[in-house]
């Protein structure tokens, strides 16, 4: 493969967007978790929820900052590397992203200041409002991004200007709410919640096996396991819903995800597969005749990879192996989180969620499962859309900017180095707080205010005045 500006730009976009999505996925869930904790504290007055809030808001500050700086990069990628795409789709996608800035970014960024620094300056209720504003802001942001991305997957409500070749909207409702939008938005929001829950559970499990467990540890594990057990079944259903819509609108993506070799009326499920010297290019272990259950709504033959062979317009297909394996890894990670959730709830009910055991050793690496599922899920969705940027209308090769391969190689290298430094430091700092647990804080009385979100472990206790002022 020649490393031209196209492939380098694709690699760069994949790299910066994959890095970026880790943080929103985590902060969307964490913002809601914080809002729940603060709400429970206000409601019940129980100290444990306040301690949970003050603990996790420090990690939130770090994750949010990393999400912001990697997000600023994203807002320029379309221009620098995909300028033809930007010119052609600007009149359709522009307003969606514009609305994201206007309705979400300012809300999040501005009230984050109150959330992190306002503890001693506003009353409890107002501080809770600020936390909720940030949580709502993250969800609105996801709404517009999923809307824009879903339009690229299943474009609707538009026409193409015959002179300039530019897209323009004919029906905004159809543009914003395309066929794939609802399932994909639900799927992404649930993904954010379970990703955060898996992290919170893992941090609690770590504290437990290291004998740093305390009352908040117990509560955070209960809440996280409960969230996983409640949401993972919903998430699997949402994923299935998304798959059904994709099958209707992007059958080539489904054929690659499923590894269907031939077009048949009834297909099976390939559990795993390997490259082979046959027409299809793969051999695998297949559970036969599953499609009547999994694709119950399909009314015609299920097209396989033999149909999508790039031989004619309308028969383009995405690269097989990335889509095929990314999908399987995502499903595996999801099943892992489902199991952790049920296991954790069972431990909770039987009263030994804070007794170190096999469950805790499983839950610690399980903290990565959500991120793995988010990344592989997006790879499935985005690689599965290839060779198009706007599915069926604008090819990826026709979208790239007229920049030189050297410039893109430079920027890709710079981003890799910068992100490696920032990511390593950020993860170390977050893990340091998360694993240290609550034993650095007194069980009762004065706690550090969120005025010092980063003053978690290595800073002197602050002046006594500020918490008293807030209480």
């Amino acid at each position, binding site marked *: 493969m020649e490393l031209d500006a196209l492939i380098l730009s694709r690699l760069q976009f994949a790299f910066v967007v994959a890095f970026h999505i880790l943080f929103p996925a985590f902060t969307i869930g964490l913002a809601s978790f914080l809002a729940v904790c603060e709400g429970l504290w206000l409601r019940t007055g129980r100290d444990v929820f306040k301690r949970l809030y003050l603990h996790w808001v420090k990690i939130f500050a*770090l994750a949010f*900052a990393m999400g*912001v*700086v990697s*997000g*600023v*990069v994203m*807002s*320029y990628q*379309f*221009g*620098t*590397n995909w*300028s*033809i795409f*930007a*010119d052609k*789709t*600007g*009149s359709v996608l*522009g*307003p969606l992203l*514009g*609305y*994201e*800035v*206007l309705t979400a*970014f*300012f809300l999040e*960024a*501005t*009230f984050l*200041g*109150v959330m*992190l*620094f306002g503890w001693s300056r*506003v009353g409890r209720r107002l501080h809770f409002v600020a936390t909720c504003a940030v949580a709502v802001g993250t969800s609105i942001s996801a709404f517009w991004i999923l809307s824009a991305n879903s339009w690229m997957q299943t474009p609707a409500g538009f026409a193409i200007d015959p002179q*300039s070749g530019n897209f323009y*909207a004919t029906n905004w409702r159809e543009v914003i709410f395309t066929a794939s939008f609802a399932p994909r938005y639900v799927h992404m929001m649930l993904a954010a919640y379970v990703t955060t829950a898996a992290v919170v559970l893992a941090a609690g499990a770590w504290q437990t096996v290291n004998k740093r467990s305390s009352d908040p540890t117990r509560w955070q594990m209960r809440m996280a396991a409960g969230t996983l057990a409640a949401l993972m079944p919903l998430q699997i259903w949402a994923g299935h819903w998304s798959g059904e819509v994709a099958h209707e609108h992007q059958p080539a993506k489904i054929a690659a995800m499923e590894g269907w070799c031939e077009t048949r009326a009834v297909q099976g499920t390939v559990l795993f597969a390997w490259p082979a010297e046959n027409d299809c290019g793969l051999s695998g272990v297949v559970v036969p005749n599953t499609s009547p259950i999994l694709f119950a709504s399909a009314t015609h033959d299920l097209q396989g990879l033999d149909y999508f062979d790039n031989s004619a317009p309308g028969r383009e297909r995405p690269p097989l192996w990335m889509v095929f394996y990314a999908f399987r890894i995502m499903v595996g990670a999801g099943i892992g989180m489902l199991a952790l959730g049920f296991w954790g709830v069972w431990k909770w009910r039987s009263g030994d969620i804070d007794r170190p055991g096999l469950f805790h050793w499983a839950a610690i690496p399980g903290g990565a499962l959500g991120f793995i599922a988010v990344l592989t899920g997006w790879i499935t969705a985005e690689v599965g859309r290839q060779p198009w940027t706007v599915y069926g209308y604008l090819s990826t090769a026709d979208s790239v900017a*007229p*920049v*030189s391969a050297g*410039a893109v190689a*430079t*920027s890709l290298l*710079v981003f890799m180095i*910068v992100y490696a430094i*920032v990511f390593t*430091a*950020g993860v170390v*700092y977050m893990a*340091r707080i998360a694993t240290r647990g609550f034993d650095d804080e007194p069980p009762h009385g004065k706690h550090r205010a969120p*005025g*010092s979100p*980063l*003053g978690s472990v*290595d*800073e*002197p206790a*602050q002046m006594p005045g500020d918490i008293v002022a807030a209480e």
Partner: protein
Amino acid sequence: MDLPLIWAVLIAVAVMLYVLLDGMDLGVGMLSAFAASDEERNMMNATIEPVWDGNETWLILGGGGLFAAFPLAYAVIMPAVYLPLLLMLAALIFRGVAFEFRHKAVRKPTRLFWNGAFYGGSFAAAFAQGVILGAFITGIETDGRAFAGGEFDWLSPFSLLTGVSVAIGYVLLGACWLVLKTEGETQAKAKRFGARALVGVSLCFALVSIATLFIDPRVTERWGVSMNHIEPGKLLLLAPIPFVGLLAAVQLLRDLTGFAMRRAAPDWRPYVLAATVFLSGYLGLAVSLFPWLVPFQFTIWDAAARDNALGLMLAGAAVMLPAILAYTAYVYSLFWGKVKPGDGYHA
């Protein structure tokens, strides 16, 4: 309704707000390199920590708004400034995370690294923004609807000059913000740096103004000035813009140095005067380039998105922008007043 014109004004205002607000953040970042102690550095940073994130969002509105309202301009300008933009983004990444990380670093080398990332990133971001501005003014080579130049087209003595100008200008804004938000030794230091930066900015603005004369006759034609003649009618009409800036600069210099002042200026005034100086420069630039969005290639009407897209966004902006301005003002008022030692992350 002339939607492209309305959106051009809105985006110009967003970029102006970015310059005034995050410019001051970047300026404080650069000045924190000269803090006498970690305590003073923390105090300087505490003046901007609660608001920097909201301030930087105006840059996203500038970039995102350009994509949304003028996709053609976005598509032509961004590839043309590929490398300085990369520098700006990398610098903003380091500056942004350093806000948090510098407090988290336990060992001294990492603490020094993130402090360095903070002021180094602040300077590099400011400089890169100035270079981008210079490249934008000097014009971009296009073919059809796409950029057609080379990857170093942005590099010129002029763009380096604008790069330095913007960096010094941000130092001025940051210093004036510190005058407002701090007291005592730190404030006195801010005044000294502010006065020096003001002299630098004045020199730079004068140089940039003269240099634009040579860039394209169309820039100065509007001012009634060209290499061989002057039209007093045109010049007098627009003269108030630089004149107000000059007055503000003179008063600012007195405020910062206390020269010929019967009593000390109120602490809020330097920032307002510095903002006025910037505003005058910005307006002057806008007047020179209007209506070109990609200078001398595409006007705002050439580059605009479809009217239905602009209309939809205008409806949203009409509701959201006042709300954004209101809650931004609220948060600023919440954190009003002098920052004390130990404020911010340690309080």
